[in-house]
């Protein structure tokens, strides 16, 4: 039986459905929930394809097993089946590679007035990024 399920993907909340059974979470929406699709080459998104040796371990009940999908994508997964929510980290290899490229990752955040600002608004200037907290 489908129930609402929230996937937190790098700051974005994806509202979808899941079948939760014995602690396993199956997404009837399949890998498309995260923007991936099945092709002959394996799981693909845009130009990237990940070969999948054991598709049966991924496919379940017409959808996809969330934990198996996360493993295939190399993305650490935190899941709370009872609460109907999970969060996916970026694959450490991808994050490392991007940082090694030195490209400063873009972000968009609000100021106190709620106005959104992006790092990319300031390309062409030197930027001193200061991160702080009250704790």
């Amino acid at each position, binding site marked *: 039986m489908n129930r609402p399920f929230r996937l937190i993907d790098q700051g974005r909340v994806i509202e979808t459905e899941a079948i939760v059974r014995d602690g396993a979470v199956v997404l009837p929406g399949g890998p498309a929930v995260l923007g991936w699709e099945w092709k002959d080459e394996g799981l693909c998104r845009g130009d990237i394809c990940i070969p999948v040796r054991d598709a049966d371990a991924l496919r379940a009940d017409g959808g996809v097993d969330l934990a198996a999908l996360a493993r295939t994508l190399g993305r650490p997964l935190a899941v709370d089946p009872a609460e109907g929510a999970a969060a996916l980290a970026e694959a450490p290899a991808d994050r490392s590679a991007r940082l090694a490229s030195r490209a400063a990752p873009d972000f968009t955040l609000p100021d106190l007035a709620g106005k959104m600002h992006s790092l990319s608004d300031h*390309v062409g*200037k030197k930027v001193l990024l*200061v*991160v702080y907290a009250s704790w």
Partner: protein
Amino acid sequence: MPITVALERSADDARPFIEAAAPTHPSLIDTGHRVAELYHITNVPTMLWIDEQGRICRPHDSQFGTDTFAEVTKKLSAPYLEMIRDWVRTGAGALDAEDVRRLQPAPSEESELARAERALGWYLHQRGSESAARVHLERAGRLAPLDWTIRRGSLPILGENPFGPAFFEMAAEGKPEYALEALTPTHAPDTGDG
């Protein structure tokens, strides 16, 4: 162009600091700790330098903009602020590609799983599922004990004092240190230029 990012639970928590500073630069609020995730930040305050081409040219350095905590941290703000001024004027202090890579902290399976657990805990807290939130926030802290954006940053979410006993226990286990800290002259003698 300075851009400041506050890792706070809400705009209201950041408000007193931002209003006191009355900045003319972007002063942003990051309740989801997105910048901590993207830049692999494990403690605050941290500063990093981004050049005109959008490349990190000096990675994380635990530096302070004022001397408010100098007694405790043994760090003076003036030498680092002078370095920043030199960089803006002449580009000095920017590191080459190899040094940036070498001095940048590297994400791992555990550190990134900890970030996923924190993100889940934060979401559950916002939804009012407090006991479930606690499970994931505490798990995050165990996975990355030296990531204070997670372990210390979660204390206010859990209703605990980030300057109290829980923090002292954490500090006794060791403090996160960025590789650059050892190289930045924060104890340089006073140049006397006021």
